[in-house]
């Protein structure tokens, strides 16, 4: 648990100070969502939700964005759904396990994009899809890299 406390602080600092260094056309990776997913897969849904919501609340306090509850909502969903994957890597086919992680993250980015770009959702769905995918895929690519270094199965 202590290890995750330290990692959460590192993730926070990276998100605040370094996420902009990795920015591509205004899209930045979300280190915190990756942290919440790892935490939830390791500790289950209950602790995952608690961690997700807490991380979301603190992040939205530090964030200069306009919608306050969006980050707690997204991270809670990641924590909750990610928790169902706890100990599942013994039972699941690796592809399905990784695909579930993919669905969780991309699903949460859909909610994020919907709240931020609901104008596009109703008026220009193609652009909305593009915005959603490019935002989600960037973090997913980072997750893939992190998975390669520290696989979710080994946490």
């Amino acid at each position, binding site marked *: 648990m202590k290890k995750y406390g330290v990692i959460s602080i590192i993730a926070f600092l990276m998100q*605040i100070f370094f*996420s902009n260094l990795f920015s591509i056309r205004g899209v930045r990776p979300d280190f915190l969502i990756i942290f919440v997913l790892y935490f939830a897969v390791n500790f289950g849904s209950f602790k995952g939700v608690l961690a997700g919501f807490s991380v979301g609340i603190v992040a939205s306090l530090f964030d*200069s964005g306009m919608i*306050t509850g969006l980050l707690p909502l997204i991270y809670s969903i990641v924590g909750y759904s990610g928790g169902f994957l706890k100990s599942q890597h013994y039972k699941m086919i690796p592809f399905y396990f990784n695909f579930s992680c993919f669905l969780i993250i991309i699903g949460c980015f859909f909610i994020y994009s919907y709240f931020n770009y609901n104008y596009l959702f109703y008026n220009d769905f193609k652009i909305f899809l593009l*915005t959603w995918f490019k935002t989600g895929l*960037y973090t997913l690519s980072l997750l893939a890299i992190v998975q390669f270094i520290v696989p979710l199965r080994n946490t």
Partner: protein
Amino acid sequence: MLVKLLVLIQKNRHHFTFILFVIISFILIYNSDSNKLKLPFLNNITSYLSSPFARFNLLPKAAQENEMLRERLIVLSLEKETLLDYEVENVKLREMLNFKRESEIKMIPATVVNMGLTSNLLSMTVDVGSELGVSKNNPVITPYGIIGKISAVNSNSSIVQLISDPGFRIGVRFLPSNATGILRWRINNICDVREVYKNSTISVGDRVVTSGLSDIFPKGLLVGIVSSVTDDRSQFQKIVSVKIEESLSSIIHVFVIINENSIQ
């Protein structure tokens, strides 16, 4: 019965906690006030901690920017000479026509210290606040045009709602046709201008400036350049795409246009 209920809650605590947090999140979402800073002292702390990093980010770009600015300086000094002549002529003509002189714009420089935490760049924090006269809705510009407006002010820092925020709207005018419309962000530095009359003549490359029809943005501030015009027969109005010249993710320095009366 109560024991059973408690056991049920205990058994399914992850579901109950999740539902509770989702409800809290929705309450927060629907009650979020974009005009208020969540916790001003946190914003101050973040901007204080971020300033060294902001300066660190500046270093690689400084030489390149310096060279570009030197070139611009030469061009601008030549333009200035011409403009000085025009100003004299303008003053004379205004006197002849008995026109009121427009108020001058006062700007203060600011450094971007934080660009938020979320994946998309919708707002940023700058290191100037109410102590230097910044107030809510002050326009924020760069040499390439408008990039946003102040949405919340703290004593030493302010939050800028960027033009990339889908909630951001701005009344614009096309030059030289003088047609007007309402601009909002679409994707990748491209904005759409809607509510443009079908009979207006707009060409690719036309300059887009603020219309001055709102109280927030003074008239004539550069916004962008027309990149395409869609004139669909089935629609009553034209849709004009405008390219924003500034790359929002790499902005370091901005200018905040302030009301002189608000300086403390």
